[in-house]
């Protein structure tokens, strides 16, 4: 466990790095004097303006964020519902994976952006968002779940076996608890990738609302201030989601982080 002074130091250094990057940007902006490099004040102005008056169509920033979050969670939930059971099944019955890997592995390497035309042809509306986000999150979740099963410590399985435990008992009480932390990590990575797919998804979704769509709108107008606001919002929300996930992981898997008395 880190002590308090170490924690305060880490917060201070993080603030310092933020200030350094902010200053560097401000210097660049002052030196260039171009609308492509808006000053921090101009970015702040764009943020305030987007929050209070909304964008060129009057849609406020919070409406954009909310719309994107709903899409993300729908796609992410679909990834979890499919990825976790399938990963577990493939880990427990390796033949399932070995006999289908020629299908799974190549699909895994096709970036979500390459699926855009296919998504436009196959799906409409909300389904397009969910599909593209699902693509991003599904494989990290599937692969970490699958690999976690192979890392179950055989001694733990044998402890139960010697007592005459059934296969069902071993899956429920040994395999699942031991893979849960890895699955949580896979979910956290998957959520991050899902969020990173938001711009691609909103390129084709059709609706004019969403943070990805916000960036695309202002890209056509070459208004860098609003674009940067959109980028920062995506980054900050991703950061917050990741931190929340880590806190939950540490709570749930207390047995992994308890201090040793050794």
């Amino acid at each position, binding site marked *: 466990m880190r002590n308090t002074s170490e924690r305060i130091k880490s917060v201070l250094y993080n603030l310092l790095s933020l200030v350094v990057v902010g200053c560097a940007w401000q210097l660049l902006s002052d030196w260039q004097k171009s609308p492509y490099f808006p000053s921090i004040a101009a970015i702040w102005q764009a943020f305030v303006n987007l929050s209070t008056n909304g964008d060129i169509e009057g849609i406020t920033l919070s409406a954009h964020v909310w719309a994107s979050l709903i899409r993300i969670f729908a796609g992410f939930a679909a990834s979890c519902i499919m990825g976790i059971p399938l990963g577990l099944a493939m880990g427990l019955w390796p033949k399932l994976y070995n006999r289908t890997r020629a299908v799974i592995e190549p699909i895994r390497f096709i970036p979500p952006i390459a699926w855009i035309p296919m998504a436009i042809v196959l799906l409409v509306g909300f389904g397009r968002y969910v599909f593209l986000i699902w693509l991003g999150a599904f494989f990290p979740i599937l692969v970490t779940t699958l690999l976690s099963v192979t890392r179950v410590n055989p001694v733990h399985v044998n*402890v139960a076996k*010697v007592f005459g435990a059934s296969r069902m008992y071993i899956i429920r009480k040994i395999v699942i608890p031991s893979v849960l932390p890895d699955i949580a990590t896979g979910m956290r990575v998957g959520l991050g990738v899902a969020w990173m797919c938001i711009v691609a998804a909103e390129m084709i979704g059709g609706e004019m609302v969403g943070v990805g769509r916000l960036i695309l709108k202002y890209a056509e107008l070459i208004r860098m201030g609003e674009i940067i606001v959109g980028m920062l919002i995506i980054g900050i929300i991703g950061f917050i989601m990741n931190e929340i996930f880590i806190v939950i992981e540490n709570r749930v898997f207390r047995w992994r982080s308890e201090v040793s008395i050794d």
Partner: protein
Amino acid sequence: MDQPILEVSIDKSFGPTEVLHDLRFDVRPNEFLVIVGPTSCGKTTLGNILAGIETVSKGYVKMQGEPVNPHRHNISYVFQEPSCIPWYTMIQDVTMGPIIKGMDPAKADKRGREVIKLVGLEGFEDYFSRQLSGGMKQRVAIARAYATNPDLLIMDEPFGHLDAQTRYLMQIEIMRIWEQEKKTVVFITNNIEEATYLATRILVLTKLPATVKGEYVIDLPRPRELTDPEFLKLRTEITNDCECIE
């Protein structure tokens, strides 16, 4: 003489490697049988086979006259490697066996607290294994093994990972427990001093492929003294017989 509790007559190969060759012995009720042999002579494989979690290539392991089967026989096993379940607290860990065997949770909890006390860990019931030292973890494994009141208790180099000091204390401890709760024990080790200290009978195994090379009945009075001339004589004799490098 009593009916043997365990009759063993096995061959075991992994692919082309013959690990156990025509290995034959009996285990009698309430004895503390120690099996010694040189390192990597298939001792752990033998332990797994006796516990019924590894198959034999030829022959049989019969417990109480029937082929050994974890679903039918009440066997406990203390593994060589640390085996505490990381997501269980100590009390959850030691009650696992009784619960698998169908004891109701309240009774299992009571039994769990008894065996934790037996190994001297009362007060730590709600600790996770990460919070425990190596010696304490091995005590938990022993408590868990005793919790089901096994008809046969197998221990595979249970103190192999411990430092010399802890190991010595654990040997005294295991003797105290064995004298208190008489159980049939098969104890596997490569340490002859440990074997001579604990055993009522010692079997010496050969190098790979392992077979029984010698048998010693140890009837020295307890508690045994490591510097007693009788003890040293026996120990030297067994050491000469065994190809162990200590």
